[in-house]
């Protein structure tokens, strides 16, 4: 399943860049994070609970920034599984500075779900993945636009 979109974020590009590429910050927008374990700046493990309504899987995700090209291009590959199911998320993000205070982020992500969740919930997959992806990216926008507290 493929989703894409563009976001206008009222925040300077370097701030957006440092938010997106810092596991501790970006995972605050992941759904229902249970634990985070950063192995190195480009690799981290995060356990999330994602799903739709009562159907929820606890996924332990291995995440890797496969491409980091300062200041505006990043690709992240997240692969994880829950009992009997597996999910893979590949997202590309491209940042363009509109001006000193605003950035446009063009994003695209491919989500493949396989195993039990995909079979039993096949008819709900498209809707669920779309919703979760939108939540993640609007959360990133909100966090970045929030006034920088001391």
């Amino acid at each position: 399943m493929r989703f894409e979109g563009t976001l206008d974020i009222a925040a300077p590009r370097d701030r957006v860049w440092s938010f997106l590429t810092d596991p501790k910050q970006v995972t605050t927008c992941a759904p229902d994070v249970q634990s985070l374990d950063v192995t190195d700046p480009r690799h981290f493990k995060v356990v999330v609970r994602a799903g739709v309504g009562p159907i929820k899987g606890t996924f332990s995700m291995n995440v890797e920034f496969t491409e980091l090209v300062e200041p505006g291009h990043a690709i992240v590959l997240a692969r994880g599984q829950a009992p009997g199911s597996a999910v893979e998320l590949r997202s590309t993000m491209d940042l363009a500075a509109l001006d000193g205070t605003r950035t446009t982020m063009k994003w695209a992500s491919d989500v493949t779900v396989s195993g039990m969740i995909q079979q039993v919930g096949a008819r709900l997959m498209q809707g669920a993945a779309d919703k979760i992806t939108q939540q993640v990216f609007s959360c990133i926008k909100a966090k970045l636009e929030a006034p920088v507290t001391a």
Partner: protein
Amino acid sequence: MATEIGGIGSSVKRKEDARFIRGRGNYVDDVKLPGMLYLDIARSPYAHARIKNIDTSKALAIPGVLAVITGKDLVPLKLEWMPTLMSDRQMVLPTDTVLYQAQEVAAVVATERYIAADGVAAIEVEYEPLPVVVDPIKALQPGATLVREDREQKDNHIWHWEVGDKAGTDKAFKDAEVVVKQDIYIPRIHVSSIETCGMVASFDKINGKLTVWMTTQAPHAIRTVIALVAGHLGLSEERIRVISPDIGGGFGGKVPVYPGYVLAIGASVLTGHPVKWIEDRSENIQADSFARDYHITAELAAKKDGTMQALRVKTVADHGAFDAAANPSKYPAGLFHIITGSYPFAKSFVEVDGAYTNKPPGGIAYRCSFRVTEAAFTIERLVDVLALEIKKDPAELRMQNFIPPTAFPYTSSLGWEYDSGDYGRALRLAMEKIDYAGLRKEQAQKRAKGELMGIGISSFTEIVGAGPSKHFDILGIKMFDSCEIRVHPTGKAMVRLGVKSQGQGHETTFAQIVAEELGLPVGDIAVEEGDTDTAPYGLGTYASRSTPVAGGATAIAARKIREKAKLIAAHLLEASPDDIEWKDYKFQVKGVPAKSKTMQEVAFAAYTNHPQGMEAGLEAVDYYDPPNLTFPFGSYICVVDIDRGTGEVKVRRFVAVDDCGVIINPMIVEGQIHGGLTMGLAPALYEQITYDDDGNIQGGNFMDYLLPTAMEVPSWETAKTTTPSPHHPIGAKGVGESATVGAPAAIANAVVDALAHLGVRHIDIPITPWKVQKILKEKGVAE
């Protein structure tokens, strides 16, 4: 007299019902042993991936989880691979790469069923997904993703197999007045017997004996395979006992050896405890052997007047990650070359190529002998395509071409010798019973009003009873079958067979054969099967072979007993054996019917008063090597109505005329036909397993794999003709699979017939409402 003793031809009520109707059946999951542990299996969500790490720590931390077995643990025991029945090999557990979704990856052994399931949920496997190939046609093209890295041959081609006169056939096609060609895809389906597969394995460390209760249709063959796989661990064949208890339906799905069996045995040997493994339905559908999945291109050459001359068929067979089909070893495409069916093609040529894909392994029967439904469906669809091409009534075209009754035994251009047949008689009876002419009139009237009604015919010829030892073996073991009969002093008998019923009623039908041959009441004859410590060696029950092969062994074993009994009778009647004749189920002095001895009297004498110099006792065993296969046939006609708004197809009527030679028990035969027709309707309209491009199974549980309920099935109408098999001891041919072979084509032909006036020639099964709707829209006749 036959009816009093319950012999051949009488509808004896089933002896095995007594336990089933009381809920006292003894299926594998009912077996409970002291100290029994439970095994459950963790499976891959990916269709092709490298296993980077298996973390079993969380699982082992659960109280009650005793062990987690992975591929690495099997390597020192040389159990990570096992042979398939088609001399390929199959992983028990992968050591580095999974090749299909739902493949076994690790096994948990725990003290309780629920704890084992918790253990499976706690196993964390790190995968690195690899490219997937699911289309066998693409798999055979150069550069395709390689499924099997463990073979020297670095491509996905398994085998090429062909039969027939290629040059002669090509010439016939060049000279033909009419040629019709049709691509036919017969989708992947699954037997889905209501009982899934399972085993209780119990290894006794003291005397080194392994006893397993398992869902197998071929207990002896399995015992030999276990000895081959685990012999080096001390599990030699005399120390293995396979018990196939009551089986909840098999249909071919319980012939193969599945990894779960080997894991349960391994776990029992390791722990010294009995270990029970019972798979869930999703595991059964997603990982156990599939059926069909044939990509066929078929061509038929004929004269303008409809005389069929030549047949040319090319097929790609999708076998998944390992060739785990259950065919006789010389026939990688089973008996597909019965595809000339009921018609005397002068020239024919068939070729099949097997391909690996990232899907579960297999290729078992699904109630259709070996690839016989694929063959019957193709020819019976192709005949209708020809009928449409030359605008001839499909019944007339069949009648004109049938192999005439006088031509039998008939040798087909693909090398089969059909034992007997009378195809015209069966079709005529079916046409009478359903009022074919009246239906055509009704169809015309309906068509005038824009209503869509179809009439479909299928006049199939089947090939069962594998088979003559000249050509038929499985892993080298010849496909004979066996029967051992022992008559007790009080005239009761114990019969033991090398086959194993999964619902076909052997305890009744085989008792009837012995009743007929020995004149003993059927109620006095006990029949046992499935325990390799007591039953004579046999190749098991599938491909409708029980009656043709073990039935032959039973009749001949009984006749051996009768020969000895005759000598005893002569001794009792103080007459020469030459003056004794077996008549009206008694030994009579020729011409003096009053001087006679019953078998009971003779049996008693065999233990109390046998002639000196003769062995006491009255028993015999026979290993029957059938001289030929048997060729049941039939003509089916069905009527369908199509809802022009939703595209739904409803089978309004279905008349099935079957000929399976001499019938032992008409009631049981009719039951086999009802069940077979339903497993013919199911793939025609409802059942299919598909995979997306990532190898994710679609339809891997009963929510989406649609077994028909009582509401989707018409009230089947059946009738029979009887054309005995000349070479079988009692003239019987076997019937378990005929209806599953013949029905899909009848239904598909009926739907195409309903739309033929719109130029429709073919629709692949399953014929779903949206396939039909799409056609109705394109042709502008949708509601």
